[in-house]
């Protein structure tokens, strides 16, 4: 699961709970889902490590100032 998506979902769940329109069963279900997502987010934060890639550009033609692209 993607971190940002999880954060959005958590927000959504809290909003749902705040509105208080849900049935008891549905509320409990949403709450449990939220707690699960929060735990998941914590886990992602704790284990995150910056991933860096470097692009290799082979554009000798750009050096001359004339790009083919």
């Amino acid at each position, binding site marked *: 699961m993607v971190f940002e998506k999880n*954060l959005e979902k958590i927000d959504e769940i809290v909003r749902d709970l705040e509105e208080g329109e849900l049935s008891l069963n549905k*509320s*409990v279900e949403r709450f449990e889902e939220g707690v699960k997502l929060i735990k998941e987010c914590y886990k992602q*934060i704790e284990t995150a490590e910056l991933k860096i890639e470097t*692009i290799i550009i082979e554009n000798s033609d750009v050096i001359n100032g004339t790009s083919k692209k």
Partner: protein
Amino acid sequence: MPTNISIPINQHIFTVGELTAYVKDLLESNQNLINVFVRGEISTLTKASSGHIYFNLKDEKSQIKCILFKWSSENIKFELEHGLKVIVMGNISVYEPNGTYSVVVEEIQPDGLGALNLKFIQLKNKLEKEGLFSKEHKKLLPKFPKKIAVITSPTGAVIQDIKNVLSRRYPLVRVLIIPTPVQGKEATNFIVESIKTANKTPNIDLIILARGGGSLEDLWCFNEEIVARTIFDSKIPIISAIGHETDVTIADFVADRRAETPSVAAEIAVPDIKEIKYNLNNLLRKSSRLIKNVLEKNKIPLKQTLSRPVFKRPYDKINSYSIKIDDLSSSLSKSFKRYIENSKKGLEKVHIKLDTLNPKSVLKRGYSIVIKDNKTVKDSKNLNVEDDINIILYKGKIDAKIKKVKEN
């Protein structure tokens, strides 16, 4: 007016061409007039279709024609315009066909401002007029970027600073470094290509365009029109971080967001993981409180239900039913009894009636029944002499033969 002038004997008389050629030679070979510098204001500027530029330089007293040939104009870093104060360097040249002289301009620079400065101002004004800096074109930065393209030199402090900040603040993000020369005018096309590359690479949602501090010449690539337009055309939002706080480039004006330094760019680019953690904590507490509320709220009707008499004194109902059952059973047994008694009475009556109809009880009183061919005989007419008959008495039967029949 004298009718003639006295021409000394042996006086050399020039032709027009000769004189013009002489002046030309004189002017063009004079050491003081080679690579001469002239200060003045540009007026009556025309650009010929040949690419050459013709204008006058003037001051309060006089004016002088100037020609800027196409090949010399290519090196000029700013736009020539009417009224601009300039210093030109060039050579005097006489144009023989109409005997005029001009300055053939080799170099020209703005008087007062440096040429680069002027070009900067001119380009800035031009792009501003076109709306390239206007707010409605600024793209929103993503709240949680997934992949950031960093366009900068792969070596040096800038990329290191950016990596450090990203790693500290938001290690969840992925970084794509697009190594790009960022020094001087020569870097222009590299920067343009790198921005295009970032736009072509999938999943990039933010670009940081960065370089460290430097002189105006060092940063010049960020003041090139093509760089400005490429930034403007980028579909992906761009944060620019060029030079130090005091350096501002055209790229900074066009970028969706300007950062004072590369580190600040990285800080703007991503949220702080500490804040996210704090928020998550809050959300957890909030949702716990909310679910508690929901549970409590759902308990209320339950409590109300439980407080109703049926649950509070559950035997009330049973008791009342039991009473009713007792009532019913007693009335049932009463009516049953009555029914039995009534039935008994009825039966007795029927019994008596039955008794009176019983032929035996008649026989008992001394009567007899005569039967012929299994039928009761009620009339002597139905009998003949010598008929066999049966006679039933109260006790016993008799078979007999008729001797005589009498009527009445």
